[in-house]
């Protein structure tokens, strides 16, 4: 995976937080992981990209950040991770992936499709992907708490 491929995803995270959550998200350094990636946080939303490229985008949130995101998005006060929180996190990763997809393909509209998002709770699992995949990871700080972005992406 080329390092520059992660930039559209980083930009999209910033846009989604700014537009939908009225909150700044500030990125940290980009790290690389060749190993299967275990969940660094409490709740992870993943979405697949397929077509002329293949990849996976994952956002991982501590519980406190996840509930803060949902509370802000829906203007409610929730404290626990429930279906609404999982649904919201799924929608956030969907918007990030969709926005990044448009940036990656440009106006040419190369055929790239998004899968429906999946949400996983808990830390005791690993995300496997085809051999030799490289995951790039960025930690973000935001007004709603920290979270992680992970991306593996290859043009075919």
């Amino acid at each position: 995976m080329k390092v520059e491929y992660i930039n559209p995803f980083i930009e999209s995270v910033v846009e989604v937080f700014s537009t939908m959550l009225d909150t700044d998200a500030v990125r940290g350094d980009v790290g690389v992981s060749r190993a299967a990636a275990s969940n660094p946080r409490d709740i992870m939303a993943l979405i697949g990209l397929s077509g002329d490229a293949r990849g996976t985008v994952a956002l991982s949130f501590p519980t406190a950040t996840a509930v803060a995101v949902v509370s802000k998005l829906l203007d409610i006060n929730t404290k626990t991770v429930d279906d609404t929180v999982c649904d919201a996190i799924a929608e956030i990763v969907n918007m990030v992936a969709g926005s990044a997809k448009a940036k990656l393909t440009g106006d040419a509209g190369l055929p790239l499709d998004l899968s429906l998002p999946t949400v996983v709770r808990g830390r005791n699992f690993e995300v496997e992907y085809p051999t030799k995949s490289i995951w790039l990871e960025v930690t973000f700080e935001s007004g709603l708490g920290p979270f992680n972005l992970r991306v593996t992406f290859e043009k075919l």
Partner: protein
Amino acid sequence: MKALVVDDSAVMRKVLIGALARADITDVEQAADGQEAVKATEREEFDLVLMDWNMPNMLGIDAVKAIRANGKTMPIIMVTTEAEKSRVVEAIKSGANNYIVKPFEPATIVEKIQSVFK
């Protein structure tokens, strides 16, 4: 005015219903996929439809085509993460009246709604 909000995400439906309220549209039905949306429009009349693209069972774009094939003429606004121009063109050709890319600011929803009723 009665609106139909179509999105497989219950959270996004709530967000859209909140945005519709800013346009003083509070009579809102919900559908979780394209199939439900088509059935809802066959069952009752709507003045406006907000339609997601990527949904299980039936894509939003196919629901738009089906609704138009049924002779329904209410404004349909796509609200989707599909941001490529080719997708916008496909949606408009299929019968959508306007297009909103997620993420969006609530004010954008109000503006687009007002624009389809001008």
